[in-house]
């Protein structure tokens, strides 16, 4: 593993220095972790591309997506997590999204 450290100015206008750690992993990173990261990214993209198709059925519900499929849906987040456990899904690696109404745009 290659590991580099850089001193970095933390905030513009202040003289505080903060150590920012910056690491680049190579082949030594477990392939399972990379595979999980890729799978999560694929599901996130699939959800974005299919959001409008999913909305009529799942509007105002949380959905759990795994392997480009909606595995579970519920208006209650805790219930969705309970359901995921029943499906033996590790929720820490699953895409979960609340499908908000078509005419609502969150301003952030």
């Amino acid at each position, binding site marked *: 593993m290659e590991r*580099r*450290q*850089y*001193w*970095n*100015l*933390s*905030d*513009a206008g202040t003289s505080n220095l*903060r*150590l*920012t*750690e*910056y*690491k*680049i*992993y*190579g082949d030594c*990173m477990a392939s399972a*972790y*990379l595979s*999980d*990261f890729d799978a*999560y*990214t694929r599901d*996130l*993209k699939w959800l*974005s*591309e299919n*959001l*409008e198709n999913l909305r009529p059925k799942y509007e105002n519900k949380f959905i759990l997506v795994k392997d480009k499929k909606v595995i579970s849906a519920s208006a*209650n*987040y*805790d219930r969705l*997590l309970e359901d995921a456990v029943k499906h033996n899904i*590790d*929720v*820490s*690696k*699953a*895409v*979960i*999204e*609340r499908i*908000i109404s078509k*005419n*609502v*745009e*969150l*301003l*952030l």
Partner: protein
Amino acid sequence: MADIPLEIYRAYGGNRIMLPVSLKDSSGSLGFVKALMDTGAPDSMLFINVLKRFRRLRPASLPEPKYSNLAGYLFEKRTLGQLFIVLRDSENNLVEFKQEVFAGANANEQLASANPLEMIIGLDFLVSNKAILNFRNPAKPLLQIEQALPSQ
């Protein structure tokens, strides 16, 4: 310079800059989360629903109570301490950044549990890592992380 490819995802009623992120703490991997790049947010923050997915995280109160109102959702701001934000760069390497991340805890449980947001990467991350949001090629936007001065 580390180049992180950005994706414009359809989410929260519009097009958003989102990043798939892996989070770690000192004990190892916590899991994956979709992070919204929000230059209007001062701090990087995880929201209550994600804390339920990553059960190991224990938010600590700040010395003085602070509240965040985001898209109508009110949160008490707490700290999760230093976490590792792991991203994929354009060469498919994993790039890791250590940074304090805050938690949006439930000021109003009913509203907070309906909050669709999972994580925000705020201005703190962009400033401390001298990051550039580069849309010069609109088809392939990038988050460019400038390397700062090397340590002694």
